[in-house]
């Protein structure tokens, strides 16, 4: 089923605990709801799809409570850190985290009015026949005004048309007390691999250096895949023995010579005693004188 961005909404507020975004129109059960925001944004019932570079994508599969809801409150983890956020209502998704590929650009720090051009090499397949691409970007500083433009993705097709949902400046009570937050999306039916993405931000001068950040997210339309196997047929290797037939065998006498080790020995000669031959003389007794 193809992904369709049915509707969007956005909101921003200065130095607040949360920003309230009106629900995109026409939410139905099963829709994919996305919140695009900055920092450590959270919203009850939403899970993190992708977070990097202090830019975040939250998602939720709409149920009946979303159908009846009017708005969503997004907090940024502090009493004065909110904030800006955009929401998308997307049909065609099924379940789970929709992010297929994602990338975050290295933070650029400068205190110039020159544009910061993000041009990031990034490879992502697009196995489905349609995909939703989102770029989020921000500038944080203690004194800045600015905006983002020139959203691009490089693939086998020309850069598709981008819809910018939000590009606002907000004040937050942090060391970098002002920020620009922008987000845009593009839908495409081309499934060639992505090789790069980019966006251009323009800030201002004055105060501390500005920090430029940008993230890129790809959501592919759900699709199934079915494969088959060729039968793996294994044949044995039978080793042919050598042999002879029709001959009468004989054997040569196996003559074995024993090895008889030389023995050492000791002999003792015994004295042979023989009985003396008794004298046969007849002795006559003589009288004692």
């Amino acid at each position, binding site marked *: 089923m193809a992904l369709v961005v049915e509707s969007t909404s956005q909101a921003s507020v200065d130095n607040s605990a949360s920003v309230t975004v009106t629900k995109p129109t026409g939410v139905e059960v099963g829709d994919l709801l996305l919140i695009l925001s900055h920092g450590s944004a959270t919203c009850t019932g939403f899970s993190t799809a992708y977070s990097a570079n202090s830019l975040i994508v939250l998602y939720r599969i709409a149920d009946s409570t979303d159908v009846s809801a009017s708005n969503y409150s997004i907090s940024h983890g502090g009493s004065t850190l909110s904030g800006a956020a955009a929401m998308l209502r997307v049909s065609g998704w099924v379940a*789970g985290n929709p992010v297929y590929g994602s990338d975050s650009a290295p933070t650029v720090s400068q205190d110039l009015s020159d544009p910061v051009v993000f041009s990031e090499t990034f490879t992502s397949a697009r196995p489905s026949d349609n995909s939703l691409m989102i770029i989020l970007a921000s500038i944080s500083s203690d004194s800045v005004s600015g905006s983002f433009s020139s959203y691009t993705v490089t693939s086998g097709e020309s850069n598709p048309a981008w819809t910018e949902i939000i590009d606002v400046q907000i004040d937050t009570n942090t060391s970098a007390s002002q920020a620009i937050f922008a987000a845009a999306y593009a839908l495409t039916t081309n499934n060639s691999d992505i090789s790069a993405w980019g966006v251009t931000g323009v800030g201002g001068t004055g105060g501390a250096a500005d920090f430029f950040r940008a993230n890129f997210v790809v959501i592919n339309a759900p699709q199934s895949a079915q494969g088959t196997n060729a039968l793996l047929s294994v044949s044995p290797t039978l080793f042919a023995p050598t042999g002879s037939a029709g001959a009468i065998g004989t054997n040569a006498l196996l003559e074995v010579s024993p090895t008889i080790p030389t023995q050492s020995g000791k002999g003792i000669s015994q004295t042979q005693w023989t009985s003396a031959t008794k004298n046969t003389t007849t002795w006559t007794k003589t009288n004692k004188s």
Partner: protein
Amino acid sequence: MSTLHLKSLEIALDAVLALGTPKLSFMATTFTPNAGTDQYFSDISAEVASGTTAVTLASVATTIDTGNARVEFDTADVSLSTITATTNKYCIWVDTGVAATSPVIATIDFAEGTLGPVAGTLAITVNAEGHFALKVT
């Protein structure tokens, strides 16, 4: 004519299958099977395709095909739901409960090459003759 004998091959294969539960794992496209060193599931577990789980095979059957002089190994078709993964082959192995003693029997390529479901169903329609066959000649 030299030949192995069908019944003994069937008995031998059944004996291996009886060591545990026959299972199937979808493998990463980077996995290159080694018939010698990939002996047990512990040898290949790191190469299972991300996003997939092992499937317990159903209707496992070893059959003597006398006409083709071979023993065939067949199972029911396999599928995983709501899967995002990339795979081009699968392994059949026997789960003894211990990965280091669970023998790997076969690695088989998909005829279609690489499959890449996105939050969808990853399915195998098993060849009508089975996954593999052991011939006697």
